């Protein structure tokens, strides 16, 4: 059984389309984790036919993903897909990823924008922000990945049981590779397409992530 997890915070405009797209491609278990949205995200998600889990208050994307993982594991998921609820990823990439994880008996697959040239990454981001972030991220996570903080992930049940996301905000994108390294999980990257129609996390987001990771380190 494949579960697709969509963490969503105020995504009423786009989430319905993403869910319908997923259903059209044959995915049956679509779980929206509404992270305390104040708009009609829940309504739109239910209308499109997804299972909706709702956080009463906003806890962040990492927290929502962990909730989704636990729900999927409880309900017998074999493969869990982390996807974006605003339509920045291509649903077709999931099909290729699921095939890859099964064929090669992998534990986890990370999406990457750099393995083909489908993604139209803005110039400044591609040649300035991402290389620096990648350097830092590979240092922190000890995993050599060609992309940084790409929210596209496919994990086998084995991996989802071992990976426990404690970074409630955006730093889970570094925490997960780190746990992959620590648990010695079998991972590979998958070329994925990212559509750019809105701002990402930006540089200040990057500093927030470093701060979260630093705090977690001293709290250990």
């Amino acid at each position: 059984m494949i579960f697709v997890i969509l963490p969503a915070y105020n995504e009423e405009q786009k989430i319905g389309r993403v869910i319908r797209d997923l259903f059209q491609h044959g995915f049956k278990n679509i779980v929206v984790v509404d992270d305390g949205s104040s708009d009609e995200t829940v309504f739109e998600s239910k209308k499109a036919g997804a299972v909706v889990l709702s956080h009463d208050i906003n806890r962040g994307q990492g927290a929502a993903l962990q909730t989704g993982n636990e729900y999927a594991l409880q309900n017998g998921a074999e493969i869990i897909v982390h996807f974006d609820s605003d339509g920045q990823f291509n649903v077709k990439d999931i099909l290729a990823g699921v095939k890859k994880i099964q064929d090669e008996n992998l534990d986890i697959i990370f999406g990457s924008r750099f393995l083909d040239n489908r993604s139209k990454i803005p110039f400044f981001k591609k040649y300035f922000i991402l290389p620096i972030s990648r350097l830092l991220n590979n240092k922190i996570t000890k995993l050599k990945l060609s992309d940084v903080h790409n929210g596209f992930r496919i994990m086998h049940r084995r991996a989802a049981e071992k990976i426990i996301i404690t970074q409630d905000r955006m730093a889970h994108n570094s925490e997960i590779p780190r746990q992959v390294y620590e648990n010695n999980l079998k991972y590979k990257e998958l070329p994925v397409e990212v559509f750019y129609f809105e701002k990402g996390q930006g540089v200040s987001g990057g500093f927030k992530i470093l701060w979260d990771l630093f705090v977690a380190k001293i709290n250990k």
Partner: protein
Amino acid sequence: MVLRFCGIYLWLRLINNMMIIQFILVVFFLFALLKVSSRYRSKELKVSEAIGWVLFWVAAILVVANPNSTTMLAKILGVGRGVDAVMYLSIAFLFFLVFKIFAHLEKIESQITKLVRKETLGQSKKYESSTRNS
């Protein structure tokens, strides 16, 4: 009666010899001591914590009432003036406190997340069983 006058006289002399800032600080610290005792009585503080805070505020009062008493401390630490030594120690103590509060806050945050998650997953279970029954 005589004792009372002596008492007031002594207080006045004390106050007279103090700078206003010293007086304000001593009153403030006495107030903090009162607060410690009331928090201890309402069982918000453990015995060890209460003792620690009482010692801290009493030391603060002594230092403020007699700033020269810190010269010793300054000599031990190798800092020029007593006041400087107190300043450095205070800053270090404040940093420590902020750090403690910070760690505590993070812990509370993660507990809130766990609580919210438990509630969310519990509700989804209820939802499923009710749809299954119907």
